[in-house]
């Protein structure tokens, strides 16, 4: 999922005729004061980060004059919001809000079609509202071939609230334009929360636009850096790096997510952070399930499957090994038709480049399990290149179950730690 920043989402809204407050992106207090003077006070100052729940996280401040604006800008630029550094701020004219609505179009996996969602309880966490009071959230499935028309929006809005006609028409107009954003930009979610009702009409005070990352090849105008979906936080530099691997080459795929980017969770739980790669997401999960009780925590998820070319394995192995916190590496393939000798070659080339002095033998415990097509060739390649002879490397075959791979890694790690003392 590629999530746009608020100001990027609002740019799309503006293009589609959805009213948004006047505003500008700034990077320092001087720029902000210039914009404040231009817009007129009071203004709202909003940190431009991907994290959700910005209001609760203190990422949105109000300023009544130049001094309070400068203070707000300095405060936010010095902040981390849910771990994300704040580099940009959106300064907007503060709207005189009379009521807040929630309007969105998203994909409903259960019906495999878009769904329009509307609630009177805008401005708050819609998931909580839906859970606490399901009757406060109204939905309408959308036939993607038929589309979503103005009168559909009116029908949905009528279920929720006896809006006065002027506001009802304005909101319905915005809703149909929001559906255009959703369709034209291949979104998974196009959301306005809140849609503010003011004396002048309705205005999108916030914007959340999540573009389906499988559609980014044709959404080039959005200039989005591709990365795997990582929840509410922004993609990390390594995830963005990994995202470029599949960009121009669809022969197999690598899906890389940093579960614990700085290994703080692993360390906090007293577990050893390890780098991790699997062929097949199911194998990935079962191998994690075996590693974690033994005291190891894969700080990344990676699924290199669909028969990726060797160059993809080379690149993703370098990415995985570039996580500075890891004290081990585990690779496990499921029993599949993937040509594992190509997979092996990619890993071998990466190891040789990363460990030139030892001829590709890693300095940390590594367990690699090859099971499936050409697994014997894969194992033999590690022997031919002398990597299997490495003190801290075990290359195993199809008679190895996930639990055995984890146990072998555990024993190897303990030997490594005992003999070398590990990393300081």
């Amino acid at each position: 999922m590629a999530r746009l920043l608020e100001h990027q989402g609002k740019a799309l809204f503006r293009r589609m005729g959805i009213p948004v407050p006047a505003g500008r992106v700034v990077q320092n207090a001087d720029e902000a004061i210039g914009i404040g003077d231009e817009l007129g006070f009071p203004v709202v100052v909003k940190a431009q980060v991907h994290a959700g729940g910005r209001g609760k996280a203190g990422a949105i401040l109000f300023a009544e004059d130049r001094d309070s604006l400068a203070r707000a800008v300095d405060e936010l630029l010095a902040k981390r919001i849910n771990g994300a550094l704040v580099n940009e701020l959106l300064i907007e004219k503060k709207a005189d809000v009379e009521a807040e609505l929630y309007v969105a179009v998203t994909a409903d996996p259960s019906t495999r079609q878009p769904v329009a969602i509307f609630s009177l309880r805008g401005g708050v966490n819609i998931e909580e509202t839906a859970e606490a009071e399901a009757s406060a959230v109204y939905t309408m499935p959308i036939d993607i071939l038929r589309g979503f028309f103005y009168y559909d929006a009116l029908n949905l809005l009528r279920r929720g609230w006896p809006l006065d006609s002027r506001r009802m028409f304005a909101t319905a107009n915005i809703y149909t334009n929001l559906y255009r954003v959703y369709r034209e930009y291949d979104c998974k979610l196009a959301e306005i929360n809140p849609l503010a009702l003011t004396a002048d009409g309705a205005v999108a005070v916030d914007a959340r636009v999540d573009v389906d990352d499988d559609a980014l090849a044709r959404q080039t105008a959005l200039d989005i850096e591709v990365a795997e979906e990582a929840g509410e936080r922004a993609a990390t530099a390594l995830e963005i790096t990994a995202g470029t691997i599949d960009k121009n080459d669809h022969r197999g795929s690598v899906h890389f997510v940093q579960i614990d980017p700085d290994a703080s969770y692993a360390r906090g739980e007293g577990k050893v952070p390890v780098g991790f790669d699997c062929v097949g997401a199911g194998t990935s999960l079962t191998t994690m399930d075996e590693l974690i009780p033994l005291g190891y925590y894969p700080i990344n998820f990676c699924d290199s499957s669909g028969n990726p070319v060797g160059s993809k394995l080379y690149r993703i192995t370098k990415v995985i090994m570039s996580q500075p916190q890891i004290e081990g590496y585990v690779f496990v393939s499921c029993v599949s038709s993937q040509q594992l000798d190509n997979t092996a070659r990619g890993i071998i080339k990466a190891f040789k480049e990363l460990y030139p002095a030892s001829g590709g033998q890693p300095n940390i415990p590594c367990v690699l399990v090859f099971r499936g097509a050409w697994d014997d060739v894969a194992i033999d390649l590690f022997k031919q290149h002398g990597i299997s002879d490495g003190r801290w490397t075990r290359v195993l075959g199809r008679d190895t179950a996930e639990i055995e791979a984890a146990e072998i890694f555990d024993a190897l790690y303990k030997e490594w730690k005992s003999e070398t003392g590990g990393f300081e």
Partner: protein
Amino acid sequence: MSVLEFEVRSGGTIRIDLDKCRACETKACVKICNSTGMGQILELKDGVPALKPTLEEVKRGACTEDLACELDCELYGKKAIVITLPLPKLDEYLEDLTATPTYLREA
């Protein structure tokens, strides 16, 4: 110096030093490309590796980037092949990284 150089689909180049290939007895790259590679793009011409498809076809994906030619040349040939597969964002990441990557540390 005589060189065969071509671009591959994922963004990168394969460079073969043909002067070294002339002294190579195994021609391991051609053998492995035709035995394991789905692309089978290399052939022997005048005693050195040459491309069967055009440069454009190779760049569009005729080369399946299994890396076998480089690795087998390293083991059984004259170390004549260098495959360069850039990952610019990783270079940027490593430049900005304050911690030392594991592979550069000593246990």
